[in-house]
């Protein structure tokens, strides 16, 4: 195995793991999959991950031919599809003894799949929140109000994210707008108006970072696990700030 080939493998695995970490896959799965691809190609892979960067060393088995890389982790949207597809790719590489060229080709095909239509995501998130409202005991009007409040909040989030606004600020504004719109249900005297307010910001809850943080810590990746939990906690605090602003205006009648 030449140094150039090891470098090519390092290039690919660097890209592979950055995409997986960026898409919100928990660390032990990323490490496992990367090592599996390394095994398929005849190299050992050693990885260190943190919240924003990862470093890896690719080393030919039994020799000292190696290559070390440090990579920034890009901020992709959470993607369960990439999670499943890229994991499956590592198994395909291992079981089918695929060449680096073939793995690279399949990887490119997987990450080039079309993205979700933002209007579709907007509607599905709003429907999900309206369903939560129903689960928590909301009536039909509370569900409708939650649906449209989420529509506004989620659209605000999409728009501000597209504009490159800091995501903590995006969370504060989105939570504020969604909960404030939901609080208009209070003016109708609905018995379940408070359920509408409570469920209108649920689409912001950072479930994936919270779960990944716990999984990472239990798997021994304590550093990145704590980073992810702190990040999730910050987002929850932002949601709380946004909703508190609404409650202070509405319930405490600050105006």
């Amino acid at each position, binding site marked *: 195995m030449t140094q150039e080939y090891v470098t090519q493998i390092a290039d690919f695995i660097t890209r592979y793991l950055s995409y997986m970490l960026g898409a919100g896959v928990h660390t032990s799965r990323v490490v496992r999959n990367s090592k599996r691809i390394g095994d398929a190609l005849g190299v050992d892979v050693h990885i260190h991950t943190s919240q924003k960067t990862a470093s890896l060393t690719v080393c030919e088995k039994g020799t000292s031919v190696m290559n070390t890389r440090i990579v920034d982790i890009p901020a992709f949207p959470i993607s369960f599809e990439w999670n499943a597809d890229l994991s499956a790719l590592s198994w395909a590489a291992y079981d089918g003894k695929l060449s680096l060229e073939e793995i690279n080709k399949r990887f490119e095909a997987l990450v080039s799949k079309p993205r979700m239509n933002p209007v*579709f995501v907007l509607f599905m998130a709003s429907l999900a929140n309206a369903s939560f409202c129903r689960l928590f005991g909301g009536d039909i009007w509370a569900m*409708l109000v939650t649906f449209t409040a989420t529509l506004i909040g989620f659209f605000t989030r999409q728009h501000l994210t597209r504009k490159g606004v800091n995501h903590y600020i995006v969370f504060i504004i989105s939570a504020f707008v969604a909960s404030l719109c939901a609080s208009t249900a209070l003016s*109708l005297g609905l018995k379940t108006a408070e359920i509408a307010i409570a469920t209108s910001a649920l689409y912001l809850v950072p479930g994936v970072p919270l779960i990944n943080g716990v999984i990472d810590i239990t798997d021994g990746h304590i550093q990145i696990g704590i980073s992810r939990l702190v990040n999730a906690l910050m987002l929850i605090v932002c949601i709380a700030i946004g909703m508190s602003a609404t409650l202070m205006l509405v319930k405490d009648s600050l105006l």
Partner: protein
Amino acid sequence: MEAFWDSIAAYNAATWLWQSVSIVVAAVLTSILWFRPRTWVKIAVKVYMVVVSLWIALVYYMKFGAVREYSSVLAIFWCLVAVAWIYDLATRFSTFQKSGKYRPWGVVMLFLPLAYPLISLARGLSFPEMATPMLPSAVALYMLGMLMAFNRKINFFAFIFIVHWAVIAISKIVIFNIPEDILLAAACLPAMFIFFREAARAAGKGCKPPVKYVELLILAVVVVVGACMVLEYV
């Protein structure tokens, strides 16, 4: 319900002159925008939208509607509508250009706010305890009409705020016995389908699922919302 209609009566009695001026200004600006569109008119219309939103927030809800519970919430909501138009003014996002599509529908919607007092009179109400074109739902309907008539590139923030207001208005039909708001609900549902469908098509190139499925989803949601309205009202 009594407080609701009392506040409307007090509002109409005290502000009928200002309301008339506002309606004339809206009519003039809309006519100029329709027949001789100029940049200054587009800016003036957006400024008018800001002013009329703040009017609803501050005059209607904070001053005359203050006796009603949670009127401050609705005032803040209308301030957000004003913010949506200020944002549009600052970013020059919506162009107020006619696209040729849905124009007749837009024209009908522009005239619907004027039907509010007629429906009230037909129901046996009399001035000042009656609906006028300067009530929140009528103003929302005017904004929707403007978006529909000049829909090449619309202020989407203002639109979804109006959709939310339509849902609020639907429940008011039953709770406060104001059937005039059926106009807003009836106008909003097709507008919801049209604007979201256009947005899905614009974003749909290279996206999944295919646009036709997104359109079906939008249609299904609009139908369900409409069914909820009908069932609740009937």
